[in-house]
């Protein structure tokens, strides 16, 4: 009982005291028209006139000399999809390590927030981040759902976030709402991935009829729709579009129904669990033994190949084209293995690495060094600098950001699973079979 009372007293005092203070966690816009600080055209911090920290419509983060520069990675770090966010986190950590853990004379401090791959989870994670006045920039989120839920809070706080793995098209569409002002991404948009898949099937494989399956997730449903639309545009015919649920195990009824329409091709851009079941059971349904199958980047892990067993042979998966990455990618992979003791857990680590470096570059451009060693980061200028990224040499390619936040170099490759890839050491496949180089 005593602890409760003590706690209540402390809490009350803290509340009343902080309420009386002028500080509120949401940054109040300074009087409009305050000049943005003018960082010199050259990179690197400039000396401000003595005693005048910069002002910025979105607020300024003040970092005392002995405090670290605080960035955060947010995404799905737990749960069945936890490998996606963890893999991105590792990419961020490698980027930090490559800078020696320091930037502009300050240590870099990385914290993480778990968005749980749901909109509510993303909303809460975003609120927590938005409330932290020491943050300068964010890398995330992992799942598009998290961004949908959380981006409003982040933009409202003046922060900007670069996502390494969101692929939903609407997030960087020209008609996206104002709450997305603080959102950029280095990942590809699914409008590219679905299109690439359709072109591969129609042109490369020469097939004319297809069936699609999605798993009720917004990612899969949107992606298969893009595929369906593009395939139809090319002249193919989508015979049937079916759906399963994410945790379904028995796919035979769905596949049997699909088999009755006799498609040449089945496209199921789902996640690992459902994907494994679908692929392994496809071969058991009469009529589908020779049907070609393809899934998307959600299944680009060895877990999927293992789960599908023997049925994985001859299966296609689309994913960002790793061979289009720069030569530094090999060195990056080695660093990954050294630091974390495992092969990459997912596929967006390089995108996370690039996102972090874009952020660091922008920080170097806009941060203002005070005379006493304090660092000032104007958030609006930082955001502008991010959008102004041009010809940035990242691992995933030469990146330039569009006004709607698309920084990715969307080269999609289609990989084939041969028996070489069906053992752990052989995965991922070395090179895509399409597009041919």
């Amino acid at each position: 009982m005593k602890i409760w009372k003590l706690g209540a007293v402390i809490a009350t005092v803290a509340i009343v005291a902080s309420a009386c203070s002028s500080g509120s966690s949401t940054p109040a816009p300074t009087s409009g028209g305050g000049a943005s600080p003018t960082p010199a055209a050259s990179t690197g911090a400039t000396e401000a006139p003595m005693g005048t920290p910069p002002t910025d419509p979105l607020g300024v983060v003040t970092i005392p000399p002995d405090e670290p520069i605080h960035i955060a990675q947010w995404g799905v770090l737990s749960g069945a999809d936890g490998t996606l966010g963890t893999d991105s986190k590792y990419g961020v950590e490698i980027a930090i390590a490559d800078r020696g853990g320091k930037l502009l004379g300050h240590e870099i401090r990385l914290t993480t927030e778990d968005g749980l791959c749901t909109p509510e989870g993303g909303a809460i994670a975003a609120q927590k981040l938005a409330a932290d006045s020491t943050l300068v920039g964010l890398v995330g989120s992992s799942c598009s759902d998290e961004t949908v839920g959380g981006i409003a809070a982040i933009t409202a706080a003046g922060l900007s976030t670069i996502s390494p793995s969101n692929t939903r098209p609407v997030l960087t569409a020209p008609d996206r709402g104002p709450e997305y002002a603080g959102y950029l991404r280095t990942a590809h948009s699914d409008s590219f991935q679905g299109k690439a898949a359709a072109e591969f099937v129609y042109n490369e494989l020469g097939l004319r009829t297809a069936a699609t399956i999605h798993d009720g997730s917004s990612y899969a449903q949107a992606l298969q729709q893009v595929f369906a639309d593009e395939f139809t545009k090319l002249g193919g015919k989508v015979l049937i579009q079916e759906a399963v649920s994410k945790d379904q195990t028995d796919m035979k009824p769905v596949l049997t129904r699909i088999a009755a329409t006799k498609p040449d091709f089945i496209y199921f851009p789902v996640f690992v669990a459902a994907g494994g079941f679908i692929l392994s059971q496809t071969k058991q349904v009469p009529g589908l033994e020779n049907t070609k199958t393809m899934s998307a980047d959600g299944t680009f892990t060895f877990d999927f190949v293992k789960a599908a067993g023997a049925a994985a042979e001859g299966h296609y998966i689309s994913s960002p084209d790793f061979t289009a990455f720069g030569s530094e990618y090999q060195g990056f992979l080695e660093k990954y293995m050294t630091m974390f003791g495992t092969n990459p857990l997912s596929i967006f680590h390089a995108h996370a690495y690039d996102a972090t470096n874009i952020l660091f570059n922008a920080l170097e451009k806009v941060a203002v060094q005070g005379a006493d060693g304090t660092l000032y980061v104007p958030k609006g200028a930082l955001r502008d600098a991010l959008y102004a990224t041009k010809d940035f040499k990242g691992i995933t390619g030469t990146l330039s950001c569009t006004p709607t936040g698309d920084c990715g170099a969307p080269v999609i490759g289609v990989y084939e699973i041969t028996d070489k890839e069906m053992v752990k050491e052989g995965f991922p496949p070395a090179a895509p079979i399409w597009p041919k180089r």
Partner: protein
Amino acid sequence: MTHEQPAPQARIRTWFPVVRIGLLGGVVAVYLCLVGIVTTFNERPLIAGVLSLGEASLLLAWIGAGYLAARRAPGGTRPAEVAAGGLAGGLAGSLATLLVLVGSVVDLRSVFIHASPELYDLLTFGLGVAGSWIPIAVGALVGAIAAVVVALPDSLRRPLIGGFTAVVVMGLFAGLLRTPMLTSPLSGLARFLFAPDGLTVAGAVLVFVGVAAAVAIRGPLTARRRYDALPDRTRRALLVPALLVMSLVVLLFPISFGPFLAQVVAIVAIYILMGFGMNITLGLAGLLDLGFVAFFAVGAYTVGLLTSTGEFGLAGWSWWAAVPFAVLFAMAFAAFLGLPILRIRGDYLAIATLGFGEIVRILAGSDLLKAWLGGPQGILGIPKPIDVPPGHLLAGPVQIYYIALACAAMVAFVAWRLRASRLGRSWMAVREDEDVAEALGVNLVQTKLLAYMLGGAFAGLAGAIFAGLVGSIFASSMQLFVSINVVALVVVGGMGSNPGVVVGAIFLIGLPELFREFSEYRFLFYGVALIAMMLYRPAGLLPSRIVKRELSSPEELEATAEGGTSSPRPAAS
């Protein structure tokens, strides 16, 4: 609960209970290791630079073993107690030693992914097999210390335990408190007490000394006893300023603590709303509804469809206009669902309602209804109730916080009035014994239906607020888990008791949200908490008096009748 000196246990002659406790403690400790709690929480310091949370959890298991064993030491003499504590702690540690030894021979990682070299290093301070004696030694040591503490006189023991607990609690809350305090006049204190995660060493010492002193100066029950000893009138007079302070705290909360905590509290408030509804359906009328989330979904989707500015919005109304419709549709839906199934008996009702909840969720996200309800893409672009520019005081979740609180207060009032009404008594009669109630003239179906509809109405309101909070609705949010959560928080808080619902929601919803860094193990703790609550406090945390009576044993009833803490008379015993 009073901690008396353990009376000389003439009955305990053997060391068997001690051994058993030690082994049990060891199993718990090894479990913590294998499940990964020790290694994962090792990243998170309790006292920065000194003790990590993972190490603390391990130590707590051993300390617990020592503590419990000391109280069961044969003979009951001081040396025996200390020996018992040490023995139990040592035994507990020995199981960890066993793990290290086995792990050095067989690679356990192919089965248990957390049996890693990192774990073994942690257990043996990096010495590997050579240091495998360390867990035994540490366990015995802390076990013996715990036993010594048990043996101390009250006046020493209580401050020690109080200080210790306070250090652990403050260490857990450190990160949460530090961030908002940094922007306040208390920032200097914040920097002193809290490292970015956990307590600083100085802070830990300060907290320990401070709380121990506070406990020592004023015994834990003095305040309670003095409160009970006061005459009724003074107590009521004290209530007013207490309520005032609480109201002040509640009103100022989001302003001081920022939008993140406001969001968490808003979600807690939404669950409280649903809890009030479930209190009527389950607490008063005894209907176990595991499909409660269906009405939540109806409310949320109604608001979404009526107010959204996106492609699925039908009318673009304001939130305030849409809410009454949300509540009405939820009620109608409850009537629609309730009519066929309310004649089904208790446990089957649970499964049938569970089925309904799932049906609603599947249909909402299905391709069949995609054109109207958005399918997996959901309904986006739901505007906030009050349109303010960003940076305004009421921007973001803060306005939802106030709205949710106001609604919760209103609903609490309605529920309170209903309880005392004729309808409320009919419900309780139906809950107790349907046949007798029917014989007394209560129309079973109508009564149950009304309870179901009212529960549904409150859930619909909660859904409407949720839609405003997140700004988008997805069918995947309407999981079975939400219904289970609501039932759990009602039972854990105290069935039929509205204050209990509030406490239950804070405990089961608020705390996990605050401790999101532990989200990997959130449900593990959740499950343990549920089991523990049911085993030790089945009436709930804040039970209503009736339920407490029903669930108390005869001895407890007698004690209460003679003037225990809940009686209005001054404590005479």
